[in-house]
């Protein structure tokens, strides 16, 4: 059987700062929610109901539409043992899939390595932002990092067309020269040439793309627009990475949290509509996570760092529904004042790696973790069904 995983892509959205789980997926019928959140709660009437117990934050309308279409899997109570409440350390743990040791390589960098073992495509992994998140970094694995697709590339400050062409030509000559080079020079030359090539290829993406979807101006929406453009240009990119924040809502939480989720929700909604318009929604999986949830009790205006959280998997091939268990708010079930996690984040990672990307998850997450079934068993690819 031919694997049809080759066209599938994963879009990871990191909610930076620690998203407040309780105000994202809200146990709106539970009195303990209102008792613990005298100030920082959503009014029951405003909650977008999913079922008789749980509902979404009022600004998550677009995600509710996708939920109604059966395309949203909500992973409740996600976390890891002995939670760390430091942003940096906890984010490291999510990035490296390693809760006990401090290591440098990221799980998605390892996935890129396994998707493209010979490193043939510099665009297999694409970060939409500056710098490289640790999740995508892996020794010897090239990953492109794009702050803004429109202006991406070398010498963005040289704008005049002829000068730009001359400058890039000179750069190509300087990095492409072959004679008498030592190993360091060889390596820098090859990397520069690859960067130039990657930028050249990426620059073609916006030209090929057209869409009726108008994305919002916020950075996440623009990043997802960039992802859609690269996806539609068929450049072989399999993993995209974007971030939004800051969800670190210690004070004045309600308006900030509503605004942030409004941005995330509409950006994801627009993106899914865009990929559907281009016939790719069944080949696209969006994964949304945050480094931790927040405390059960509010602090009068916001919430402090906690543990136990929620992740979302959204896409045309997702078996929508609730996964994991919603953690109990009862005092004796709590973990030091936090929601108690009940499923390891590496279960979700393993599901994505194996069920979606067709990779062996064990070496990437360094262990065997029970998998969810939120990815629909793949139908016979339409590419194959046309044959004969």
């Amino acid at each position, binding site marked *: 059987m031919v694997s049809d995983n080759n066209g599938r892509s994963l879009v990871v959205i990191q909610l930076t700062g620690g998203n407040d789980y309780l105000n994202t997926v809200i146990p709106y019928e539970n009195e303990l929610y209102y008792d613990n959140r005298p100030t920082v709660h959503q009014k029951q009437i405003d909650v977008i109901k999913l079922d008789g117990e749980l509902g979404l934050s009022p600004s998550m309308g677009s995600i509710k539409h996708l939920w109604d279409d059966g395309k949203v899997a909500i992973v409740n109570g996600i976390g890891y043992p002995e939670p760390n409440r*430091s*942003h*940096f*350390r906890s984010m*490291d743990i999510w990035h490296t899939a390693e809760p006990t040791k*401090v*290591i*440098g390589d990221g799980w998605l960098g390892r996935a890129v390595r396994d998707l493209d073992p010979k490193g043939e495509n*510099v665009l297999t992994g694409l*970060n939409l932002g*500056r*710098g*490289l998140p*640790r999740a995508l*970094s892996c*020794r010897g694995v*090239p*990953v*492109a*990092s794009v702050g803004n697709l429109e202006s991406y*590339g*070398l*010498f*963005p*400050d040289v704008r005049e067309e002829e000068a730009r062409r*001359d*400058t890039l030509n*000179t*750069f190509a*000559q*300087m*990095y*492409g*020269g*072959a*004679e*008498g*080079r*030592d190993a*360091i*020079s060889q*390596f*820098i*030359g090859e*990397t*520069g040439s*690859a*960067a130039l090539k*990657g*930028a050249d290829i990426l620059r073609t993406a916006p030209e090929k793309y057209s869409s009726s979807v108008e994305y919002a101006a916020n950075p996440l929406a623009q990043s997802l627009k960039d992802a859609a453009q690269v996806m539609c240009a068929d450049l072989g990119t399999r993993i995209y990475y974007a971030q939004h924040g800051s969800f*670190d809502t*210690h*004070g004045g939480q309600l308006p900030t949290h509503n605004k942030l989720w409004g941005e995330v929700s509409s950006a994801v909604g627009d993106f899914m509509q865009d990929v559907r318009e281009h016939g790719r929604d069944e080949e696209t999986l969006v994964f949304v996570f945050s480094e931790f949830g927040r405390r059960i009790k509010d*602090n009068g205006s916001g919430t*402090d760092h906690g543990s136990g959280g929620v992740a979302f998997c959204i896409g045309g091939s997702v078996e929508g529904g609730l996964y994991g268990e919603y953690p109990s708010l009862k005092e004796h079930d709590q973990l030091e004042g936090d929601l108690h996690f009940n499923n390891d984040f590496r279960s979700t990672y393993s599901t994505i790696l194996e069920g979606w990307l067709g990779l062996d998850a064990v070496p990437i997450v360094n262990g065997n973790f029970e998998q969810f079934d939120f990815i629909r068993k793949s139908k016979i690819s339409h590419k194959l069904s046309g044959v004969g």
Partner: protein
Amino acid sequence: MSGQDIELMAHLMRRAGFGATRGELEEMVDKGYEETVEELLFPQDGPRLGDDVIRRYHVDIHESRIPEPPATEWLYRMVTTSSPLEEKIALFWHGIFASSFSKTQQSRSLAVQIDMFRRFGLGRFDSLLLELSKDPVMIIWLDNQDNHKGAINENFGRELLELFSMGDGNYSEQDIKECARAFTGWTLGNAEYMTARAMKASIWPYGAIAWHFGYRDYDHDDDEKTFLGETGRFNGEDIIEIICRQTATGRFMARHLYDFFVADEASVPQWPYTPPLDPDAIETLARAYVESDHDIRSVLRILFNSDFFKDAKFARVKCPAEFVAGVIRLGGDVDEPSLEMNEAGNLMGYMGQSLFAPPSVEGWHEGTEWINSGSLVERVNFAAEYFNDVEKPGVRDIIERLAKQNGGSFSPEDVVNSCLDLMGPITMSEESTRSALIQHVAKKGDLSLRERESGKAEDDRVAELLGLIAATKEYHRA
């Protein structure tokens, strides 16, 4: 003054500092190479942009308000200090004693740790390790506050031997346990107070107050221990004394110093299996370590004055801190604080080196591992744009010097050669780079700086060329 003198001095300053302008290099050549090395080895409290001035502009840094490591604060020091080796040695130790913001989340304590590297980093290795063992960031980073009498936590004990002194293969697992026992009771002095503060003020929990060291006699295991074949009722100081007189320690430190100051070695985990690039050099440095009674300054004196150092021009890949600080020092425009420095501080992170946040306890992977397509684009774009600006004092200085050469008239080849000289001197590893630059300049013909009153188009051409030189393969190397 010969071209070779300038070239050697430029090499010294790229390694012992963050590069130098032509004017600075000329002064140093007048003073002499050995004398310059001596001045570098004895940092003075000379002029630099003062912390008080920086804080007035960067309230965020001063009040530790931003939940991020204080990279910008350190970058100011690197670009304005008149004792560059003081910053360079701190950077060296930061890469080896790599502890991160991720576990402490407290800028103040990290800044205190780096300041300790400045003060002790060129001195006796024993004193440095002792200070390191009492450093609150290190205690938290390697869990020594959880290392108790009767219930040891080996984390610090293990890394002290493996990463901070002798290297893998020179001690047993039993030695690690005995080492950890000796450091029981070495903990934080104000943990309860800091926790109380954190509970009270949740947003910026720790503000400007740092942790400090505390020794708990009642929690210290005072029984007999056998460590590296010696037996006694050792405390931490005794363990450090034993470690520092091991041959393995001298060799391990010699290789680290060679790797950082001379030429990129294989990555540290490979060292037990890969011979050094230059075994004689390591031997020389290891002997200097023993003969000087573990004095880092004395080892560096030998290193900087050695032929193996002088012959290693451009043998290293610049780390992001060297790259960014080097560009800004040569551009020479930081005489007051500006918010643009925050962007420059972030840039080092985009290039793969977030100061105070190394990827793991092993520090950064260096050498060619600094270069990937993302980091290379950041490096090239930053440097090319920085120099392509005739308003920058460093760029103006180069243009003025150029105007005095050749009567101000240049063929494309002459102007490329002169600019390569004034920006470094930079030696081209390949002729193709130079010829690409010459072809680029030749598109607009010869260059004349004689009648510059009539317009600044010619100045712009020089600045553009400086930007392109900063975009070469060679500029990534130190």
